[in-house]
C-alpha cells in the first residue's frame, strides 16, 4: 500500500499474492504487512484460504503470482528449509511431531545447528544443546517426559511439543495454525499462558477460531473471506465491520 517499495520497514510484506488450484483461486490478490513484534491473527470462515496463506509463506505451496518479502528476502523463490533458516517457523494444524523419537530427540532435531548433511553427521550433543532443550522442555511442561517416546504423549502434549520445537528454532516470525484446537479446557489455559510467554520479542501470525483467545493476544486482526481480505484492523474495528458481521452471521 503505502510503502510497499520499502519492505524493510515490515518484517513480512505479502503483496498481490494469488494461488489457483486448477482454476479455483484459493487466495486471490492478497496483500498484507506484518511489523516487527506484531501479533497478527487471521480469522475467517472455513475455506477462506487461511491455512493456504501460511502454506504460501512457508513455501509448502508455490504461489501462482505475487510476492512475499521477509525482511529483504523474497520467500516465493526459496525452498522450505531455506525459509526456515531465514527465520520463519511454522506449526501445523494437527500436531506434527516425530512419533518414533523421544521428546528430547524431537526438540534436539529442531535445534538450529548442524542442519546440513555433514553438520548432522558431526553434530554433538553438548552442554549448550542440552541446556537449551531442558529450558524449552520446562516451558512446554514436558521436562519430566524428556525420555519418553513422543507417540505416548497426549494430544495436548503433542501440541506443546510442536510449539516447543518451534521455540527452540527461535524464529523471527512464528506462524501458528489453530494452536489450541482439540485441547481440553485446562490444556487450553496452559497453552494460552505458554503462547503469551513465547510471543514476546518476535512477530507472530496466528490462525485461530477461539475469539476469546484472539481478543487476548491480537494486536491486529485480518479477516479473510474467499481468498481475499474482508477487513483488517484492531479487534474492535473488525468486530464492528458490517461486512464481517454479514459473513459470520450469514453462516
Amino acid at each position, binding site marked *: 500500500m503505502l510503502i510497499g517499495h520499502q519492505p524493510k520497514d515490515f518484517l513480512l510484506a505479502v503483496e498481490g499474492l494469488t494461488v489457483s488450484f486448477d482454476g479455483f483461486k484459493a487466495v486471490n490478490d492478497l496483500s498484507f504487512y506484518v511489523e516487527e513484534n506484531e501479533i497478527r491473527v487471521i480469522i475467517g470462515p472455513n475455506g477462506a484460504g487461511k491455512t493456504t496463506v501460511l502454506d504460501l509463506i512457508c513455501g509448502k505451496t508455490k504461489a501462482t503470482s505475487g510476492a512475499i518479502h521477509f525482511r529483504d528476502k523474497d520467500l516465493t523463490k526459496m525452498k522450505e*528449509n531455506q525459509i*526456515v533458516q531465514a527465520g520463519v517457523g511454522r506449526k501445523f494444524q494437527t500436531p506434527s511431531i516425530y512419533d*518414533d523419537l523421544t521428546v528430547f530427540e524431537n526438540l534436539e532435531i529442531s535445534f538450529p545447528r548442524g542442519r546440513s548433511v555433514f553438520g*548432522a553427521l558431526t553434530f554433538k*550433543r553438548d552442554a549448550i544443546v542440552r541446556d537449551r532443550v531442558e529450558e524449552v522442555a520446562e516451558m512446554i511442561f514436558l521436562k519430566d517426559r524428556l525420555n519418553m517416546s513422543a507417540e505416548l504423549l497426549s494430544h495436548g502434549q503433542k501440541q506443546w511439543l510442536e510449539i516447543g520445537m518451534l521455540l527452540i528454532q527461535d524464529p523471527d516470525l512464528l506462524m501458528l495454525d489453530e494452536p489450541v484446537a482439540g485441547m481440553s479446557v485446562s490444556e487450553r489455559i496452559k497453552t494460552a499462558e505458554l503462547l503469551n510467554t513465547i510471543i514476546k520479542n518476535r512477530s507472530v501470525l496466528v490462525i485461530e477460531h477461539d475469539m476469546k483467545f484472539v481478543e487476548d493476544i491480537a494486536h491486529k486482526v485480518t479477516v479473510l473471506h474467499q481468498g481475499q481480505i474482508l477487513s483488517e484492523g484492531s479487534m474492535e474495528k473488525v468486530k464492528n465491520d458490517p461486512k464481517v458481521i454479514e459473513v459470520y452471521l450469514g453462516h
Partner: protein
Amino acid sequence: MSDNARLVNRPELLGILALAVLLVVILPLSLDVFRLNLVAKYLTYAFVAVGLVICWGYGGILSLGQGVFFGLGGYCMAMFLKLEASSPENTKIQSTPGIPDFMDWNQITSLPFFWKPFHSLTFTVIAIIAVPAFFAFVIGAAMFKRRVGGTYFAIITQAVAAILTILIVGQQGYTGGINGMTDLRTLNGWDIRPDHAKIVLYFFEVACLFGCIFIAQFIRRSKLGRILVAMRDKEDRVRFSGYSVANFKIFAFCVAAIFAAIGGAMFALQVGFMSPSFVGIVPSIEMVIYTAVGGRLSILGAVYGTLLVNFAKTSFSESFPELWLFGLGGLFIAVVLAFPNGLAGIWSDYVQPQVDKLLRKKSPKNGWTDASVADGAPAE
C-alpha cells in the same frame, strides 16, 4: 566425547561381538573351504543389506535397484581383474592378444578408452566407490529434489535396473554380454583362486563388512540417523525444521549404493566372475528380502538375515528345488505380514526379555534394558 555420541550401547556391542565371533572364529573353524567360500559369497550380499537398513529401514527409501550398484562395483573390480587375466601371454591365441577374450570375439581390436584406467588398482578402488556414488547421486538428486519417493521411486529404480541389464547384455563387446566377465585369476599378481587365497579374502571381506557396519552404526547413532527416522515419519516437519530433506535422502541412497558396490567388488574377488544376472530386478528385490528378514531397522539383523536366507536357499535348493520358491515366496509374505521387524524384532520381542530375566536374576543391578533406555538421553 559425551555419552550420547557413544557408538554402540551394551546390547549392540554384545551383538557385534557375537557376530564377530561367529564370522571370525566359529565359521572358519567349523566349515571347510568350500562352505566358507559360500559364506563369503553370502556376505557380499550382506553389504547390500546393511546399506538397505540405512536407506530403507531408516530413510524409508525403498530401492529396487540395488543390483545396479552391486553390479557397478562388481564390474569395476572385474574389469581390473579381467585386464590382468588378459595379459598378452595368456591371450596369445587371440587375433588381438592383450585384450579380454570377449572383445576379441566381438572384433574389437583395441582396448576401449574407458577400460584403460582399469589397469591401475588405485583407480579401480576409487572407481568402485565413486562410480556407484555418482550414479546414486544423479538418480537421487533428480528424484528427491522433485519429491519423488515411495512407490514411484521403487518403480523407477526397477526401470534403471532393467535398462542397465539390457545395456550390458546388448553391448557385449565392451561388457562380456550375458556371459559376464569370467575366468578372473589374479589380483596384482596374487592368485585369487586357490584355497588359501579364498581364506585370506574371506577375512579381508569380514573386515570390510565390519567397517561398513561401524560406518552404518555411526550414521545411525548420529543426529543424521535421527533425522532419517524423523523424515520417514513426518517429512514435512523435518523440512520446516530447516533441513533439506532431499539432501539427506540423497546421502542415505549414496551410502547404500556405496555399500552395495563394495559388496559387488567383493563378489567379483570371491567368486571370480561378474555377470549381468546380479544387476537385474529379480536379484535386486531378493536383496531387499535379506534386509526384511533380518529386520529393516537392525544393521546386525541384516547380516544374519542375509546369511539365513542364503543358507536356506542353498540347502533347500539342494534337496527340494521345487519347494524353494514356495519357501522364498512365503518368506516375503510372512515377513511383511507377521514379522515386519524380522529377526531383530523376534529377538527383541521374544528372546531378549527371557535373556534379561535370566540376567536380572543373577545380577539385579546390571540390567541391559536400563542402559538401552537411558542411552541417547541427556541425563546419565
